């Protein structure tokens, strides 16, 4: 099985064929703006000294993240990473809770126990990442294993970066998924830079997706700045997995438009590379597509832009009102109690 390059989505008719209507497209656009807006405001909070520790953004990856979040079914699950704010937004995380997380407040999904993008709301089917990449890939594979054991028609999505593809976890996960034909889609956020390490020092083949052949499933490379192309491929892969036809490796090619984290000015990325990829900004691209192919009006755009702005302003205010965690409860919850298992998904 050779790796397949995804085609762009040319018209609104093609969009309808893959199960989206015009309203869905506008919602995706809104989610992309929200994801970027959260990170832009987070950056300001960081500069104001309100965010302890470090701060990571996924600028340039908004299309891929929102597309995959949109393609997931309501009961599907996943383990998104630090470039995937769009997944959290699309699945319905409230932005104020993300800001609270950034600031280590009580209302962040981890209640100040973990920082930055190490968060997820399990009720939305997402499970929080760890720093060791891609240690959540075997976990996502285990989720798919559970679906297979139980005969659930659910799919797991495991995200990893091209840098983390160098680790054994990636191989061990995909090997198991291939052997057992598990309902999982592996999404590679290939943003071409693993901290300062370029792709040619991370892997020796042309595409990460080339490796899928070694596990007996399909590998697809898609332009990660094209939200509709990613959506179409993600949807295909997810429904294929749901139908029992096994995993897919979907490689979304983007450029990390900022440093690894906020302290990193990415001096090692050639200027021309940034310039070239800036022309392919996922939000600008989709905006143009919506004007040309979906008849988005200026009024519609204005409504979306201003409502996102309003939401984020309100969210910031609400997050700043959230208390810092009380050290009196420092060592609570190192261990779970039986009643902590009293959740719908643990029964």
């Amino acid at each position, binding site marked *: 099985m050779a790796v397949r390059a995804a085609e762009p989505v040319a018209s609104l008719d093609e969009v309808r064929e893959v199960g989206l209507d015009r309203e869905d497209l506008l919602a995706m656009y809104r989610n992309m703006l929200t994801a970027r807006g959260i990170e832009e405001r987070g950056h300001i909070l960081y500069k104001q000294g309100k965010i302890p520790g470090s701060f990571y953004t996924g600028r340039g990856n908004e299309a891929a993240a929102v597309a995959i979040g949109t393609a997931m079914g309501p009961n599907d699950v996943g383990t998104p990473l630090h470039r995937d704010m769009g997944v959290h937004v699309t699945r319905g995380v409230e932005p104020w809770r993300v800001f609270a997380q950034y600031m280590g407040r009580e209302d962040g999904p981890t209640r100040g126990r973990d920082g930055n993008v190490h968060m997820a709301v399990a009720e939305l089917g997402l499970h929080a990442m760890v720093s060791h990449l891609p240690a959540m890939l075997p976990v996502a594979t285990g989720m798919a294993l*559970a679906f297979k054991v139980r005969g659930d028609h659910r799919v797991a999505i495991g995200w990893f970066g091209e840098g983390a593809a160098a680790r054994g976890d990636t191989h061990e996960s995909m090997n*198991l998924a291939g052997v057992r034909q598990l309902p999982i889609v592996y999404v590679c956020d290939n943003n071409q830079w693993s901290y300062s390490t370029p792709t040619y020092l991370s892997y020796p083949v042309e595409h990460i997706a080339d490796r899928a052949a070694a596990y007996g499933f399909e590998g697809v490379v898609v332009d990660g700045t094209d939200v509709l192309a990613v959506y179409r491929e993600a949807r295909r892969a997810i429904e294929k997995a749901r139908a029992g036809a096994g995993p897919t490796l979907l490689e979304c090619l983007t450029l990390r438009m900022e440093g690894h984290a906020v302290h990193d000015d990415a001096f090692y990325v050639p200027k021309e590379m940034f310039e070239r990829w800036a022309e392919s900004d996922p939000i600008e691209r989709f905006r143009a597509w919506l004007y040309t192919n979906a008849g988005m009006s200026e009024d519609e755009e204005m409504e979306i832009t201003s409502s996102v702005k309003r939401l984020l302003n309100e969210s910031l205010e609400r997050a700043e009102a959230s208390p810092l965690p009380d050290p009196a409860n420092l060592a609570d919850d190192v261990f779970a109690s039986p009643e902590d298992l009293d959740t719908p998904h643990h029964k």
Partner: protein
Amino acid sequence: MTYIQAISDSLRTEMRRDPRVFLLGEDVGVYGGAFKVSLGFQEEFGPWRVIDMPLSETAIVGGATGAALMGLRPVAEMQFADFVSCAWDQLVTVAAKQFFRAGTPIPIVVRLPSGGGFSGGPFHSQNPETSFAHIPGLKIVCPSTPHDAKGLLATAIEDPNPVLFFEHKHLYRRIKGEVPEERYTVPFGRASVHRPGDDAVIVTWGAMVYTATAAAEELAKDEFETEVLDLRTLVPWDKEAVLASVQRCSKVLVLHEDTRTGGFGGEIAATIAEEAFEHLDAPVVRVASPDMPVPFAPTLEKAYIQQVEDVAAALRELAAY
């Protein structure tokens, strides 16, 4: 019933009563596991509840973690406890911390056939329980009797946390005991008096319970009666029982098969020094394996693992103090 039969019996009982419980590991299905703990299970429960995994401890423990997050109750088998080093990241980075930081419990059990005594060499003989006892968020179980093995495994499967269940291989077929046919649980954090005595106490767990008991019998010939206190679980460990025995006996020997430096015995000795110093009639004695890899040749291994005569000698010195 032997120790290993008690473990099989407990697993079978739990799988019959809770459809969420399933096994995954290397060669656990058709072959029944390297030690035959799950022999015949695949016939009874089917290939999707007794899952033969690729040779990947990472995928086994990570897979168990993901399945637990989705509501199943995985029991993962490491073929040998030594191999858990390959799954360190999944246990220590993911499973141990996920509830604290993300609020989602990880109810998994990892079974670990551990310990030496039959020339397993450096990679099939280790007792890595202390390495994991140092990681907050993991529970550590080290049963020594068939009765406790059955009851503690049931408790481990019910527990909402990641539990490392260390089964001492040298006990598997050597140790027999009465085991109730019906299901029961043995609580974590409750030590048991394996042999009564008032003149000294040996605090230990796992296979060393038997070494300690034989050494105590040696000294009983001279009317020196030593209690053997079996901790049964290291996380949580029964501090109250240890301190009560120290108060009563005033002389303490801490014994483990794992190596000495940084071993769990140091934690016990330090706790006694902090909280029961005035009850001691002698310094706490630690007896453990020397700080070196487990050697292969029978002569070397016998010198490495503390034998009855080694413990009896240390106990005699303690008695004479």
